[in-house]
Structure formats: structure tokens, C-alpha cells
């Protein structure tokens, strides 16, 4: 399900709204994921506090959403653009790729809450396709 030019334009313009808000969106999505899908906590056993006010959650939420912003800029070649991040996830972090889908879903929920009018079904499908392509690129080096 490859990204059309229209998808890319939709993603770029929608993500511009997220740009100023990356810590809030990231913290919300990450802490939500840890609550709704408790199996994801297994990757964060080294953090004492996994609540939405946790310094670790806020910092990491921002890191992840900033990373997505970078991917938006490399939307024309995600595999090449995310090579280093893919190697990180494949060889060091070894996050099971199923979790990318889980976090993606939580991100979509946060976007719906934060931008109820702008997150139309048309924006939703473009962003969903993009996040799926991003997950694929991120798992590229896994095997």
C-alpha cells in the first residue's frame, strides 16, 4: 500500500500541525500505550515511573514523535532515510515489530483527540498508510 503523491502532501500538511506539540503528543501516545497494552511495559523495566508525568516518558515520547517528524521529511525514501534507526531497532533495541502497530494506533487516537476537526477520514487514511510504511522501514534490518 504505497504512498501516493496526495498521501504525502496530506501527511506533510497534517504533520505541520503536530510540529509545535511533539512532547505533548508523544507523551500522551506513549503513556497511553503503556496503560492500554501493558505488555509493552516489558521494554521499559528500567524506568521507575511509567505514568504520563514521568520524566522518562515525556522525554522518550518527544524523541519518538520528533523521529516521526524526521521521517516525514524523508517520506520519499523511508527505507534509506531510516536506515540508522532501523539498525538501532534491529540490533540493539530489538523491539518486536508488532509493537509498532500498537504505538501507531495510540498515535492515531491522540491525533483524533488533539485535532478532532482536522483528523478527517481522509487525513486518517494518509497518516495510517504513512505510519505503516514507517514501521516497515523501521523493521527493514531485522532479518
Amino acid at each position, binding site marked *: 500500500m504505497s504512498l501516493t503523491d496526495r498521501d504525502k502532501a496530506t501527511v506533510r500538511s497534517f504533520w505541520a500541525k503536530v510540529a509545535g506539540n511533539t512532547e505533548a503528543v508523544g507523551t500522551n501516545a506513549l*503513556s*497511553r500505550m*503503556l*496503560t*492500554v*497494552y501493558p505488555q509493552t511495559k516489558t521494554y521499559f523495566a528500567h524506568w521507575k515511573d511509567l505514568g*504520563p508525568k514521568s520524566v522518562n516518558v515525556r522525554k522518550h515520547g518527544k524523541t519518538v514523535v520528533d523521529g516521526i517528524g524526521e521521517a516525514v521529511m524523508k517520506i520519499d525514501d523511508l527505507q534509506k532515510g531510516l536506515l540508522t534507526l532501523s539498525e538501532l531497532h534491529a540490533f540493539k533495541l530489538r523491539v518486536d515489530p508488532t509493537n509498532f502497530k500498537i504505538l501507531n*494506533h495510540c498515535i*492515531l*487516537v491522540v491525533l*483524533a*483527540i488533539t485535532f*478532532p476537526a482536522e*483528523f478527517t*477520514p*481522509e487525513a*486518517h*487514511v494518509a497518516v*495510517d498508510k504513512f505510519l505503516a510504511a514507517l514501521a516497515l522501514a523501521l523493521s527493514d534490518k531485522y532479518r
Partner: protein
Amino acid sequence: MVEWTDFERQTIADIFGKIDYETVGAAALSRCLIVYPWTQRYFGNFGNLYNASAIKINPMIAKHGTTIVHGLDRAWKNLDNIKDAYTELSILHSETIHVDPDNFRLFSDCLTITLAAQMGAEFNADVQAVVQKFLTVVVNALGKQYH
């Protein structure tokens, strides 16, 4: 049997007590048909589904969305026996309508996002967890009679 805490029972009752079935149903189903266009395969007789704009104003889709969300009534009204409550609907979806059960999950995700947009900040992580659990149980029950 699924165990439900008081918080979960209350949250579910609150949500279904206050949503507008027509608005939520229409929004969730049209979103599903737009975001996952292959789901349109089950709606061949539903008129114009040519593009997102057509889907969003299609009255047959809106009506059917309402029907689907009302289909959840037998779950929240029978939390302690959802499996049996859905036997009839499961057989219907399997043997009459021939719906791939993965579609139940796709619709659930769209319904979750629709509820999130409606409820805003009130749709916090704990509420989302309850909705996720509830819809997962229903989806499971709907798939039980497939063989």
C-alpha cells in the same frame, strides 16, 4: 468468563448512556470504509461509495452504522455472558454475510478513534483501556462461531 471491575462496568455504561448512536455509528462506519477501502466489498448494494465525500453523505451507510453500534448493546447489557449473547450474530456474519472476522477489528479501531474524537480529553488512557478490552471481547465473541 471475562471479569469486569466496577470502574470498567461504570465506564462502559457511561459511554453507551451518553453517545448519540446515529452520529457515532455513521462516523465510525464511513471512516472504516474510507480508511480501509477493502471493507467496501460487503457494501455492494449500498449506493454511491465512489469517494470519501460520497461515503460520508451516503444515507444507507449512516443507517447501517447506527445498526452496527446498536449491535453492541447486547454486549454492554450482558457483560457477564458476551459469548452467548453473540452466538446468533456470529453465525449470521459467518454463514450468511460471509464477513472476514478481521473486519471486526478494523471497525473497532475506527469506532475507538471516533469515540476519542467525540470525547476529547475525557478519553484518557484508563477509558481507552476499558474500551479496548470491551471491543476485543466483542470481536472475539463475534468470531466464535466461524468454522
